């Protein structure tokens, strides 16, 4: 029917005269669309192309402005395609239905009485419907920072009043989804229950920051601790540890605590990186002021800034 369409003249495609009224154009389009819509011709492999030509022509001629410009030669018929649409038939495909609830064997159930093969297909379909699993259910769970780093078990209270115990694997990332088998909706028939899908979000921590498998911590230290060095208590996700601050440290000095970071699947852990931040006293300290007024620094922190 379509053969070679001459440079896609939309009037020719729709089979209307150049003087056709908008009503005539719509009527012509509908008549063709009814015959050519890909979902109404699931076995026609060329249906999508034919339908594309017709909808393109209709979109052009049904728009008064576009039609005027086309008639005046200002635009041509190219570029009139609609965005790619997935048709229902693409999903119904080889399974004969896009979902268990769209199956309809009424079209051949009678043949199944005379044909063993069809009887078997019919039986399988009916069994499938009975055995279909329940739906999955979606949940969101906000998890504490340390629970995500170390792993934990938490209980979600469900809207219907029940509850769900969720095991949070150590090292879980923001946005990851946990699948809990069989904890979703029950099956309509005799099938298994669906799954519960729990999407994880992680609350930020007051002072720990996660970077991949490592934990970053900014540690305030006193002037003495930095200059003289010494042992300080440092928090880590797995507890507090004593760390030796090297003599002569300053703001920005970084200490690496191996194995004190985020747990990995294989049981190992990343590291904790402790960045020192030297703090002067918040309250006035007369003793310190007295000392400093007499003290001459032997270093110039702004040496490289002379302009």
């Amino acid at each position, binding site marked *: 029917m379509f053969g070679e369409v001459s440079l896609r003249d939309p009037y020719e495609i729709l089979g209307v005269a150049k003087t056709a009224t908008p009503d005539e154009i719509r009527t012509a389009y509908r008549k063709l669309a009814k015959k050519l819509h890909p979902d109404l011709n699931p076995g026609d492999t060329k249906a999508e192309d034919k339908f594309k030509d017709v909808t393109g022509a209709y979109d052009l001629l049904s728009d008064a402005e576009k039609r005027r410009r086309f008639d005046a030669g200002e635009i041509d018929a190219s570029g009139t395609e609609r965005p790619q649409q997935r048709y229902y038939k693409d999903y*119904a495909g080889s399974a*004969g239905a896009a979902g268990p609830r769209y199956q*309809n064997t009424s079209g051949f159930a009678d043949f199944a009485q005379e044909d063993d093969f069809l009887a078997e297909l019919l039986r399988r379909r009916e069994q499938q419907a009975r055995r279909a699993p329940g739906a*999955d259910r979606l949940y969101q769970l906000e998890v504490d920072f340390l629970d995500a780093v170390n792993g934990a078990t938490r209980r979600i209270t469900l809207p219907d009043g029940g509850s769900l115990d969720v095991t949070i694997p150590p090292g879980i990332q923001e946005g990851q989804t946990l699948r809990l088998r069989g904890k979703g*909706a029950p099956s309509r028939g005799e099938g298994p229950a669906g799954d519960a899908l729990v999407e994880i979000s992680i609350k930020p921590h007051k002072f720990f920051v996660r970077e991949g498998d490592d934990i970053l911590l900014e540690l305030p230290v006193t002037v003495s601790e930095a200059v003289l060095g010494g042992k300080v208590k440092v928090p880590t996700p797995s507890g507090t540890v004593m760390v030796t601050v090297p003599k002569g440290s300053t703001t920005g000095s970084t200490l690496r605590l191996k194995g004190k970071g985020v747990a990995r699947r294989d049981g190992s852990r990343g590291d904790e990186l402790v960045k020192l931040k030297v703090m002067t006293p918040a309250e006035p300290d007369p003793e310190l002021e007295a000392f400093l007024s007499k003290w001459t620094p032997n270093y110039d922190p702004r040496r490289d800034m002379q302009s």
Partner: protein
Amino acid sequence: MIISKSEFLYRAQMDQETLQVWISEEWIAPQGLETEPVFSEADLARAGLIRNLQQDLGVNTEGVGVILNLLDQIHSLRWALSSKLKAAGDDGNS
């Protein structure tokens, strides 16, 4: 691929009330519960088809139901036919 109700409404460009009507007419049959239905890409494509039927092809409400029912029968028939042909082919018969 699970699509939530809000994503479905957005991508199908329809409102809640219309969706309720389509579901009660059994044109779209989501999985899940009434309170929390879950949709698939196939359900979205089916919604697109219903739109085409109503808007592009001028089919009325009763007609849509009839067409979808027949279409579902056609798809099952195609499946039965292609299964049968495949089985006959494997047997070496023509």
